[in-house]
């Protein structure tokens, strides 16, 4: 049962939309719109409750290329590990 739950992901987008880059690839100061969450079920659940949903715009406040990142989403500063940030796909906005 547990294995089954973990196997579920929360992939959301239509195949045509998948052209995002991982959030962890955005440099400090860059902005993007979340295209897709690719993590497991419980990770996604925690992400959405902190405001990270497809369509939300995010600003990277800090990314030193290694270690955790800080992003701003829906007026909240959220710290997330590099691994977790890699599971959020975003489209850059200029």
């Amino acid at each position, binding site marked *: 049962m547990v294995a089954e*739950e973990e196997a579920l*992901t929360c992939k959301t987008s239509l195949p045509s939309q998948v052209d995002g880059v991982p959030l962890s690839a955005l440099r400090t100061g860059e902005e993007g719109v979340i295209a897709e969450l690719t993590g497991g079920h419980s990770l996604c*659940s925690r992400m959405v409750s902190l405001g990270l949903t497809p369509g939300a715009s995010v600003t990277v406040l800090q990314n030193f290329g290694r270690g955790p990142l800080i992003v701003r989403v829906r*007026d909240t500063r959220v710290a997330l590990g590099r691994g977790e940030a890699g599971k959020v796909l975003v489209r850059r906005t200029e």
Partner: protein
Amino acid sequence: MSENRAISKRIALPVVQERPVLVALAGQPNVGKSTLFNLLTGLHQHVGNWPGKTVERKEGTLTWKGTTYRLVDLPGTYSLTANSLEELIAREFIIRERPDVVIAVVDAATLERSLYLVAELLPLPAPVVVALNMMDVAQQEGIQVEPEVLQAALGVPVVPMSAVRGVGVQELLETVERMARGELPYTPRFPQIRPDHQQVLDSIGERIAGYVPSPYPDEWVALKLLEGDPEITAMMRSALPPERWDEVHAILRAHDDAQVAVASGRYEWIGRMVRAAVTRPRVGQIGLTERLDRWVTHPILGLFILAGIFGLVFWLTYTLGAPLQNLLETYVVGALAEWVGGLPLPAWLSGLLADGVIGGAGAVLTFLPILVFFFAALAFLEDVGYMARAAYVMDNFMHLIGLHGKSFLPLFLGFGCNVPAVLGTRVIESRRARLLTILLAPLVPCTARMAIIIFLAPAFFGAAAPLVSWGLVLLSLTVLALTGIVLNRVLFGGRRSAFIMELPLYHLPNWRTIGLSVWQRSLSFVRKAGTVIVVISAIIWALSTFPGGSTEESFLGQLGRWLEPAGRLIGMDWRLTVALLSSFVAKENSIATLGVLFHTGEEGLAETLAATYPIATALAFLVVQVLFIPCVAAVGAIRQETASWRWTLFSFALLLGISFLAGGATFHIARWLGG
């Protein structure tokens, strides 16, 4: 699921007539919920655990205009999907206890995020009053929120307020009172699922109708099934006839993206509310928080700041606490023991009271001043918002030992006392990370262990004592890191739980919140000292006194001699072995025990020891002492928090093994080097 039922059964209280109005306080972390709770209930609060759970439960009473209110502070959670025990507890309470009113605390400065919980609360069967908190902060940030517009848009009462400044509290209570009496219009607008999933939701709703166990609302259950909520899924799987369940399950599997559709529906609803009620701040405005964070969360500078701040915490703690500790030792514990010794009591009773109870529990209590200052400093750092940053900059290091940043605070608390460290692991969501943190916590040298080092090191090592002391601290932290790496590999296959956390805005400290936090942490320490430690101290005293009246011939002495062959392996005679055993009651007992065994008392003890033992033995003894099993209070805390004797015994055996190996290695290497 079985857990689920257990909660409900025990929470259900008999309904008495004229029962006080039951009010639940809900809110996300960092929205000022605790401040409001403290403001409303003051010291009329009771802190305990949710039945059978290791989640803290705060409850308080309040009398206002002749009516008594029972206020239950629900755990602070971002949502109500059963991701964590906290979320489960919060929603089970509302569904099963049906509070007369739920106060939903939201932060006016981060309305978009903090309304998410409101979106989850509205479909539950209890009326919601929104406390629009932090209006002052929002104003400073240039955000203008119009409460009346928000109220009209939500369809539920909205009360603007600032709990920190005590503004709006009367209005809130008045609204709660009128709501409880049913005098206010209540027409909530519910969030809808994203339109492309409405049909799926309906088809699930049709299939489960009539099968949903009471008291769960049908529509809510359908929504939670779509969200993939593990508890509700398990509940419906057993509630539905098998073929029905297969149908529902097939629909769910075909729509495993529905979780995000549900969440997006809530954010769309929130977007409408926010657009109606909020005048946005000027874009590009950089607040104080972001300016400070450029330094404080910087991967290198941030570490220096962290080291500086924590150095200051230790310095303050010991500079202010140590003199008070000495006063307490001399004028309270010492005087009390002397007074008891002078009473016309049978010798065994006066010995039991003076040496057993006062000597054991009293010695533990003398650590209180140091702990109070330490807890106050940490509560201050927590309250102003720094602790989340400390977790963030430590995340890289914590990764190395299979943990993430959130484990840093509880481990750091361990420098004060291992007991609050173990209790403090409650902030960690995943059970795996929490267990690992609990297992590692006793390897942080607490104030009592430091006291032993500070007492013994100068006698043995003279001018090199500070160096040796630092070396011992460094050693225990290195052992902690290595143990973390190994345990994570062996027990958990190297997996690591997700690190996501909010970095709250920095804000001015609220002295009330800090004071209450210090009060509660100290109280739980004193309670432990007052119960477990008194009993065990008395037992150890008896073991070291009977039969025969001298420690050499006592049961403890006999045990020490029996264990001597093992002690010899790490360079220790029976006296040092007994001293180690007695440190199980309270670490600093080692010193008192040695004083008894050498008939010197504490004054001449250091010199006597230095003359008796070679350096290699002394070093091995100190190494074992810092790595040894923690005191009985900490073991009790480990048992309580892991809720398992198996893990408690595992921790016990682990530390015993580690300290024995490290002690042996130290002894033999030091002797080989000529010590």
